[in-house]
């Protein structure tokens, strides 16, 4: 289960260190921006990128983006530090670090971008890099499948998202995000508001793995644990949340916004918590709690109240801290015990004390116990829920239930493996090296620190974030451990009770949940079916169209020709046929009859010689037309070519078998007649109109005086239109060379 990771003392050398330093430097850089942002200023930087489309290379640092940046760069640094040990000596570590760093940068770009299209560029880059990361253990079938699944689902959402962005840009006349926000409420009244919203949400919901698109996220745990810690705690899955938050000022406040986000967020939160409780794999359990967090964040974004916004900002940070810590801890456990199954783990507390303490800190924050930031977050959540104007009970209920479940899961994940009785795993687990412990410990401590000193967060990040979300810093509510005896406190107590009860009974509940969930359609199981269906559809269609049979291709092509011409004739309304036979002489009729007879003989004969002779007759007939209608050069050429054709066919036929009997095929006959008739009809219509002879007259009067030739046809060929002739002889040369090559490439005897 240990991601195929090979611990190797040799480490990863410079490829391991540089990314860490890089990420660390970024973190430090973003830290340096905190004072500016804390003073409620935003920094915008832009250069034109594609001016002709109005697209800028623009970045904006404000509370919201800086919060994300710090989480991304900070956790990124710790994760890279962790990974360098976790995957020490892995032959593909350089790629891993590259992808992870690239992902981090993309993510930073995403949250900093102040241009819709730029944002989308980074959005897709995170999709792409995460695809590479999820499929990191690429030799395993499952990794590949899950990587594709993640890519496909988020990619599909991404395309809808793109459509939404394009419409959004069109509706607001700019691709600048701050520009759109500055336009105020105009967007909400725009006719395209609803389609834009739906399309954007399709993107964010898939990216944030909201129900019902949640199924890819647990599968994405196929990635190495540090990847899970990074992507699925602080970063990628929060990209969707970020975009909803970013668009909050411009798009929130409508009923659609409110209800869509609230209901889907709530459903995701509860549903994911239940799913989480059901898991026995630590990583999977954590993955679903991430979903729960995302649901909760979405739910809050549906609202407009300051409480909700503050709750959002706080919980965003809380969750990132403890979730990353727990993922990393799970990695440590996995690495030292070789398993992530809860049932096989226990008694690790004594063997891995530091890990255990970090786990305990993170888990209590997650469970929402004071004095951790988690508690503050939870309190604010309840406050936010109650502040929901229309349906506080529903929202509060959902939050309560999910929080209780979360508490139980925290126990399952971070308490049981360490503090319940010893379970033999056959290995002797020991503490992970410091590089791997640094992350969980720091993150866990931060959770506690911010709980005790919430003002740090309040000023530095929460207030600016709320400003970004609402436009008014006054909306930000105070972060405090003790807010007095109020409804949130009662709800907190209820949460503890309920949560502990669930934890106590979680094994039984799990069995119940299994039965329940088995009854619900599982999109993950449908995924393979979906892919199979897609393949089947593709195969069916391809069988239908690309039959591999020339006859059907030709039939389709001729059918298109006939149908195209006839239907167009019908559409345009065919002018009356002007069939003028007055100047037809018997000679003409005879020649026409000869040609037709030759053509029909070719058609009906089963004798090759008769067919060739009949072709000769047609050729002769056509030469006769050229003779009668004053084209001696053409006639000569026609006769020469016809002769050569007969000679070539006669040579080739020496090796070919005789013709099969000509059979009659009504379908083919009808089509043939239709094609023939359509050409005839067009030609009759064409010749009924007068012909402009400008060109010919020019040739006639210039041929001798200017081009010194009396044979106008030849002068056209070698002078007026010499380029045609040149191309034509090129065709002849190439035909000869090609045919020669074809004859020579495979000698006789190469036959199968």
């Amino acid at each position, binding site marked *: 289960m240990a991601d195929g990771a090979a611990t190797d003392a040799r480490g990863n050398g410079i490829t391991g260190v540089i990314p860490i330093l890089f990420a660390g430097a970024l973190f430090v850089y973003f830290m340096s921006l905190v004072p500016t942002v804390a003073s409620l200023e935003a920094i915008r930087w832009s250069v034109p990128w*594609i*001016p*002709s489309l109005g697209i800028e290379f623009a970045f904006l640092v404000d509370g919201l983006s800086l919060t994300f940046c710090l989480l991304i760069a900070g956790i990124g640094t710790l994760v890279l530090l962790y990974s360098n040990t976790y995957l020490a000596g892995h032959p593909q570590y350089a790629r891993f670090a590259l992808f992870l760093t690239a992902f981090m940068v993309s993510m930073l770009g995403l949250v900093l971008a102040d241009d819709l299209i730029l944002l989308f560029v980074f959005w897709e*880059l995170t999709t792409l890099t995460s695809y590479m990361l999820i*499929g990191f253990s*690429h*030799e395993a079938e499952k990794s590949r499948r899950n990587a*594709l699944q993640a*890519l*496909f689902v988020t*990619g599909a959402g991404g*395309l809808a998202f793109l*459509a939404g962005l*394009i419409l959004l840009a*069109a509706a607001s006349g700019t691709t600048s995000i701050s520009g759109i926000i500055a336009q105020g409420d105009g967007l909400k009244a725009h006719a395209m508001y609803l389609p834009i919203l739906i399309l954007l949400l399709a993107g964010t919901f898939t990216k944030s793995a909201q129900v019902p698109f949640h199924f890819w996220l647990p599968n994405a745990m196929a990635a190495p644990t540090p990847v899970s810690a990074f992507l699925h705690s602080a970063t990628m899955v929060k990209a969707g949340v970020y975009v909803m938050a970013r668009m909050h000022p411009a798009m929130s406040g409508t009923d659609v916004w409110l209800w869509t986000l609230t209901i889907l967020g709530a459903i995701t939160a509860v549903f994911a918590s239940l799913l989480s409780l059901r898991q026995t794999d630590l990583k999977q359990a954590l993955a679903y709690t991430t979903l729960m967090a995302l649901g909760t964040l979405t739910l809050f974004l549906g609202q407009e109240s300051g409480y909700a916004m503050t709750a959002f900002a706080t919980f965003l940070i809380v969750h990132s801290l403890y979730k990353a810590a727990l993922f990393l801890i799970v990695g440590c456990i996995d690495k030292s015990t070789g398993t992530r199954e809860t049932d096989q783990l226990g008694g690790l507390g004594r063997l891995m004390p530091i890990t255990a303490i970090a786990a305990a800190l993170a888990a209590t924050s997650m469970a929402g116990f004071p004095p951790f930031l988690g508690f503050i977050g939870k309190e604010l959540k309840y406050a936010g829920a109650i502040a929901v104007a229309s349906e506080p009970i529903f929202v509060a209920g959902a939050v309560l239930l999910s929080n209780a479940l979360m508490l139980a899961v925290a126990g399952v994940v971070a308490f049981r493996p360490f503090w319940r009785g010893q379970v033999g795993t056959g290995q002797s687990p020991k503490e992970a090296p410091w590089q791997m412990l640094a992350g969980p410990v720091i993150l866990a401590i931060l959770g506690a620190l911010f709980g005790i000193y919430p003002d740090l967060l309040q000023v530095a990040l929460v207030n600016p974030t709320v400003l970004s979300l609402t436009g008014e810093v006054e909306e930000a509510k105070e972060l405090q451990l003790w807010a007095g005896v109020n409804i949130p406190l009662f709800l907190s107590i209820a949460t503890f009770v309920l949560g502990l009860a669930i934890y106590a009974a979680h094994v039984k509940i799990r069995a119940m949940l299994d039965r329940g969930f088995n009854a619900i359609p599982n999109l993950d199981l449908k995924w393979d079916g979906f892919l199979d269906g897609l393949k089947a*559809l*593709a195969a069916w*269609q*391809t069988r239908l169209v*690309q039959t591999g049979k020339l006859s059907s291709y*030709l039939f389709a*092509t*001729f059918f*298109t*020709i006939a149908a*195209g*011409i006839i239907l*167009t004739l019908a559409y*345009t309304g*065919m002018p009356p046929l002007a069939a003028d036979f007055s100047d037809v002489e018997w000679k003409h009729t005879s020649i026409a009859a000869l040609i037709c007879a030759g053509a029909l003989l070719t058609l009906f004969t089963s004798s090759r010689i008769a067919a060739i002779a009949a072709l000769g007759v047609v050729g002769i007939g056509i030469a006769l037309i050229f003779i009668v209608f004053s084209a001696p050069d053409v006639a000569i050429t026609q006769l020469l070519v016809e002769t050569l054709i007969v000679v070539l066919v006669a040579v080739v036929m020496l090796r070919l078998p005789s013709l099969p009997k000509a059979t009659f095929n009504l379908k083919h006959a009808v089509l043939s007649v239709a094609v023939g008739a359509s050409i005839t009809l*067009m030609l009759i*219509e*064409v010749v009924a*109109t007068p*012909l*402009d*002879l*400008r*060109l010919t007259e020019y040739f006639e009067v*210039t041929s001798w005086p200017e081009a010194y030739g009396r044979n106008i046809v030849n002068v056209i060929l070698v*002078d*007026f*239109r*010499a*380029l*045609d002739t040149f*191309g034509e002889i*090129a*065709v002849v*040369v*190439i*035909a000869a*060379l*090609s*045919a*020669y*090559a*074809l004859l020579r*490439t495979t000698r006789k005897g190469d036959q*199968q």
Partner: protein
Amino acid sequence: MSWLLALPIAIPFLTAVATFLTRDMPVGRWLSIIGSAILLAASIVLMNTVLREGVIAGQMGGWAAPFGITLVADLLSAVMVLITAIVAVAVSIYALADVDEKMERLGYHALFNMLIAGVVGAFVTGDLFNLYVWFEVMLIASFGLLVLGGRPEQIDGGVKYVALNLVSTIMFLTGIGLLYGMTGTLNMADLASAVDTADQQLLTVVAVLFMIAFGVKAAVFPLFFWLPASYHTPAFSVSAVFAGLLTKVGVYALLRMFTLVFDHDTAFTHTILLWVAGFTMVVGVLGAAAQSDMRKILSFHIVSQIGYMILGLALLTPLAIVGAVFYLVHHIVVKANLFLIAGVAQRIAGGTELSRIGGLYKSAPFLAVLFVIPAFSLAGFPPLSGFWAKFLLVKATLEIEAWFIAFIALAVGLLTIYSMTKIWAQAFWEPHPDGVEPKLSKLSTRERNAFLIPIAGLAILTVIIGTMPEPFVQFAERSAAQLLDPTPYITAVLGEQP
């Protein structure tokens, strides 16, 4: 002017002659590269001139239009010539390692250069019948290249390719006859005004005939069968050139004729094109999804991508044409490159059938990087060229609120991702079924350079277009403006009209 326009045709012909006469010597292949490089230089000069001076025209033989044959280059023509030259350089370098001596002795280089000449000729000619002639040059050279080597599946593919393209050729010729019979002229600029006095209803019918003829060349639904039936069979250099250039000539011809000449009943003709575009995209991409061979997948994707270009033409808004032009250029670079990469994969991993190969990611990471760029560009991932192409077209469809076709365009994009990741997962990620380690070091240094330099070059071009799209978008905008208002084109060819 006339020389600037004629040289891009003459250079490949001279190269062909030189390579053919030296075919028994090892210098032929180098001559081919040098010739392509000179062509590239000439096409850069041409492009530069067109950028500076607008549409330029040259009267062959000194006979005034519409009497003689006019060569004419607007921005679209110039960029097509330029991109052709780029592909020619890339492929002729690639051929150093891909084309064996036997094929060389049978005239590979001559055929290749004549193919390029035909393609260039088709792009710069301003005369309809001359266009036919260049189509034929291109076609017959492609026949030869397609079957060069003579393996049975090549012959099989060749039969289908030849049969269906011949039908198209004949229809084209018939169409020229009819159009001449209506207007009395062959010069395309002259036709643009001559058709105004012709019977408009009949003109529509003839337009449909042309649409079908060019449609076969462009491989649109339901006329594309020849392409997936044959493109996976020849040498990789050959299929790369085919994939990059040949269908685009059909698209170019459609773009040219259906903006310049057949713009009298767009409500009808361009609606047909819209349907064609939709079906082409979908059928092509589903076709690809059904394949399990790298080259077959890529072949079907050509069809699918052609749909996008046709979509741009069908919408006929400025932005849509911008998208079509951008798409055209992007696709040539990317698709040719993917076929080249498939060749390397075949060489080191032993095939192109996905279930029979693997391990390229692990053993040939550089190749993997080179694959990812065009593959994800094709799939429309930003910031690669394909994203902007798709972005422009989707924007164009959304702007005119053509929801359904926008949905199709996006959904097809998703399925393109699916196909590209299929190749990625099965050829690159998945271990090789025979445990082979497909390393690039299996190739000699010479081979490695010959393979990877052109691939890397095209990949860099893809990235450049993707990350710095502004000049390309601007270019496409100017080009689209020329297409939608052909007055400068007509003036350049015919002089000031009263």
